[in-house]
């Protein structure tokens, strides 16, 4: 099994950290992982994307242009990556700020209203965990326990009190994905 | 009484430092480098630290310094002597490290390294020979060349408006918090030599006591480059160089000397 994912959105939306949590979860599950960010001006407020690969065999290229799954958090990224999803692949997006919806018919398109739901729950920061939950509902490549274990590993100890909140967001994302 | 009656140990009033070898110095007759080389080695010998000292030779007239020395030496790229000295000292903080640099090396191409090494307060000793000219390459204008002074690249005299003013590096580094002892000396008269030796000794004592960076400028002559006889060059130095580069301590015990 090899899963090739692009996660894209605005800098500051937690794009890179979502990818990192996914990569950590893969390690918890003894998989090979690769996490390759776009870097540079993107770090300072523009768009950001990260290519994440999880596989049960050695990963060849960390650089990809075609993906099994695209996780999209803003319109620019949707415009940029809709065509990069392999036929039969998944495009998952948060509909906050999306005016031109994806139109391909040869891929599976899913929506998660994570921004809105996280705001309703009073913790807008965990919206990316909700998106991750939605993704894992569609592609259960790693278990919730391993995501939390991965999160624990990637977070400094002083943030460990946030683990429960993140887990709740992850599970809520699984429930609301459409 | 013939000469062999005089050459006896009990009559010995002066001998060459054992830290310098018997090779002939390559400096021009009358040049101050030879005296400065000797003073540095005498101080190191008298302090008994020769076995723990590493010198850094620059590019310029002093590039061959290691040829005359019995000390461990590293020959650095042009201007980089204090960076090399920093590398040596940081990995061997208990050894003595000094650089010996001319004005082109320290005050032109190596200005960045000089200022930042001084600013970091590396616990090393910098010996700076300032003769206001590039000696080795044949008498070109140096950053310290005086206004109006003729060199092969300022044949009509240094024009301040076109070529800038002579830079006073010693004053400049004395302003940096990292320097602990900053002084300007000369070696053209017996009394100047005695004072210069004391200053060099103080500089190495500062290093020994791990107090910070010590910087000793020696205003010197370049009779070949200046196209003067040695005696005339020394006179010219007193009359022209010393008013612009006055001798004396600029900073002692980390405190600026105000005059």
């Amino acid at each position, binding site marked *: 099994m090899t899963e090739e994912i692009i996660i894209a959105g605005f800098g500051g939306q937690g794009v890179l950290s979502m990818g990192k949590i996914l990569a950590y979860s893969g390690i918890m599950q003894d998989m*090979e992982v690769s996490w390759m960010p776009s870097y540079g001006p993107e770090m300072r407020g523009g768009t950001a994307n990260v290519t994440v690969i999880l596989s049960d065999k050695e990963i060849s290229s960390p650089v990809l242009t075609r993906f099994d799954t695209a996780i999209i958090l803003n319109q620019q990224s949707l415009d940029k990556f809709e065509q990069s999803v392999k036929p039969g692949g998944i495009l998952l997006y948060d509909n906050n700020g999306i005016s031109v919806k994806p139109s391909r018919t040869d891929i599976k398109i899913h929506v998660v209203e994570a921004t809105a739901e996280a705001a309703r729950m009073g913790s807008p920061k965990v919206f990316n965990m909700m998106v991750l939950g939605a993704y894992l509902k569609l592609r259960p490549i790693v278990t919730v326990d391993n995501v939390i274990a991965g999160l624990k590993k990637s977070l400094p100890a002083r943030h460990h009190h946030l683990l429960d909140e993140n887990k709740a967001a992850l599970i809520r994302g699984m429930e609301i994905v459409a | 009484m013939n000469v062999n009656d005089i050459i006896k140990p009990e009559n010995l009033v002066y001998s060459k430092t054992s830290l310098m070898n018997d090779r002939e110095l390559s400096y021009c007759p009358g040049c101050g480098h030879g005296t400065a080389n000797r003073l540095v080695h005498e101080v190191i010998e008298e302090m008994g630290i020769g076995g723990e000292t590493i010198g850094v030779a620059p590019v310029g007239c002093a590039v061959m310094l290691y040829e005359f020395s019995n000390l461990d030496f590293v020959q650095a*790229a042009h201007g980089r002597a204090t960076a090399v000295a920093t590398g040596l000292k940081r990995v061997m903080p208990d050894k003595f490290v000094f650089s010996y640099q001319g004005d082109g090396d320290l005050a032109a191409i190596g200005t960045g390294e000089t200022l930042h090494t001084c600013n970091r307060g590396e616990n090393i000793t910098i010996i700076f020979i300032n003769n206001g000219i590039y000696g080795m390459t044949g008498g070109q204008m140096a950053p310290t060349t005086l206004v109006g002074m003729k060199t092969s690249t300022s044949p009509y005299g240094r024009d301040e408006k076109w070529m800038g003013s002579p830079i006073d590096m010693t004053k400049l580094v004395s302003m940096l918090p990292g320097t602990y002892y900053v002084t300007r000396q000369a070696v053209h008269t017996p009394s100047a030599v005695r004072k210069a030796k004391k200053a060099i000794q103080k500089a190495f004592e500062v290093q020994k006591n791990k107090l910070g960076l010590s910087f000793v400028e020696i205003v010197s002559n370049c009779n070949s480059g200046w196209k003067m006889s040695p005696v005339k060059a020394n006179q010219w130095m007193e009359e022209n160089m010393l008013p612009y580069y006055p001798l004396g301590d600029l900073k002692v015990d980390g405190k600026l000397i105000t005059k």
Partner: protein
Amino acid sequence: MSEIRLMKGNEAIAEAAIRAGCDAYFGYPITPQSEVMEYLMAERPEKRTGMIVLQAESEVAAINMVFGAAAAGKRVMTSSSSPGISLKLEGISYIAGADLPCVILNVARGGPGLGTIQPAQSDYFQAVKGGGHGDYHMLVLAPASVQEMADHMPLAFDLAFKYRTPVMILSDGVIGQTMEKVKLFDQMPRSTEVPQWAVCGNAGRKNRIITSLDLDPVKKEQQNLALQAKYQQMRENEVRYEKYLCDDADYLMVAYGASARIAKKSIEYAREKGIKVGLLRPITLFPFPSAVIAELAKKMKGILSVEMSAGQMVEDVLLATRQTPQVPVKHFGRYGGVVHSPEEIFEAFLKHFNLG
């Protein structure tokens, strides 16, 4: 017990430096490798192992600090990216000329000039042909994964000391910035041995001089001949490479670093279509695996050199294959900061050998 972590290439190599018993690091920030010094500073290696980390005022100062610390016989390194490496070349030439060991990491980016901060492999010539003035080489390692970024660190120090030579680890923005699983080797002790040639004060022995200068051309030529003999030894003993699917291959790709990884993916595409392509990945770029490429060339219908440059390594592939002129050698690469995709490489491959 070895430890598994998720790390960027830049972080892995910094951690590996501490673990390899590195004595000192001198550097200057530049994208895309600033994580190296940031990681080192955060780790407080002076407390972990006694390793010194100092931020210099410039790349020029940093390489000369390396020169000084290397003269003291220490395991010492610096890191930078392309424009910064250009600045270091004077110092590298002096280090090579003075027979000193050190490790230099180049996390390469696109050029020329200030170029771009995005990945490139256009510093190949600079790395393997000398770069600075004079007849010298660095031994050049080219890691293609985060794991190799870590593993090449102790190897680089061993080779640097074995040959008393500067060793360059030539990486790029892809490998430097990508996070992968890395198995870290255990902490090695810092060496307490003082090499026979090091300067550290002449107590109890004759003084030593570290210099690259000799005004007598006949003596300087002798010194050059000794350098050349050293490079010949490297050619005979230190060639490293990886062969991937070469046994049944009709076509060969040659690629190093990030390009080798991307080329592997394009080879998957080729094999899905029944075209038998293999990969030869040089792990040492100097010495270059010429002999193995020459041997493989004999049974190939074509060779594609893939690098993120306008065509630099391809010259060495051409030299290696001059006994088989009937085998076409082609180059493909995006550059100036553009990273080629597996699809692009595959398409170029089909086009170059009329397989499309």
